[in-house]
């Protein structure tokens, strides 16, 4: 089966600019996650979707981050305006809902200068 697709792979922007990341999960996976991984740390959950509804967004900085999952398939994560501390790898993962079904994409490395 095809994996979780993410784009772009790399992005460099200036602070206060906006940026968007795209994720296409594995077909049929109802649950989609966005994680932020700062250099030297483990991934931290930003938001979890079940189909097109939000399950958990408690750690999403809602003043600057937004995410949507239209039609319960693809998802977009946006940052506006970006700050220097947003420099990180943004990982998307999807799950069939069962404990063995977490599959990760290759991530987007964001550098804010």
């Amino acid at each position, binding site marked *: 089966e095809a994996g979780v697709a993410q784009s772009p792979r790399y992005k460099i922007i200036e602070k206060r600019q906006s940026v968007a990341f795209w994720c296409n999960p594995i077909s049929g996976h109802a649950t989609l*996650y966005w994680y932020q991984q700062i250099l*030297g*740390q*483990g*991934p*931290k*959950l930003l938001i*979890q979707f079940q189909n097109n509804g939000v*399950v*958990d967004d408690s750690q999403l900085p809602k003043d600057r981050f937004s995410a949507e999952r239209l039609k319960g398939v693809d998802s977009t994560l946006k940052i506006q305006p970006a700050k220097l501390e947003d420099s990180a*790898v943004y*990982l998307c*993962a999807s799950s069939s*809902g069962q*404990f*063995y079904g*977490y599959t*990760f*994409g*290759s*991530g987007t*490395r964001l550098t804010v200068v």
Partner: protein
Amino acid sequence: AQTVTQSQPEMSVQEAETVTLSCTYDTSENNYYLFWYKQPPSRQMILVIRQEAYKQQNATENRFSVNFQKAAKSFSLKISDSQLGDTAMYFCAFTLSGYALNFGKGTSLLVTP
């Protein structure tokens, strides 16, 4: 809140030797799932091994095995016959059914010739 602790930031092992990575976690729940993920420089999270808390038998996957001590809340990963391709970051992760993965800070493993 569930926390995952990996107390070894870096480890090194010679090729063909055995190495054990430590992980402890904290939860008041009885039914949960534990994972070890490998993250090479390509950034993609790769599932190494998983364990269901209700199963007393330790999981094994080829050269990888775990020592799951539920009472001690410990979940260590043993890599036997280490290979150069095992060099990567290793993350321990915890989840409750239906929830996102909660990761530790990771252990950087270097396998030397």
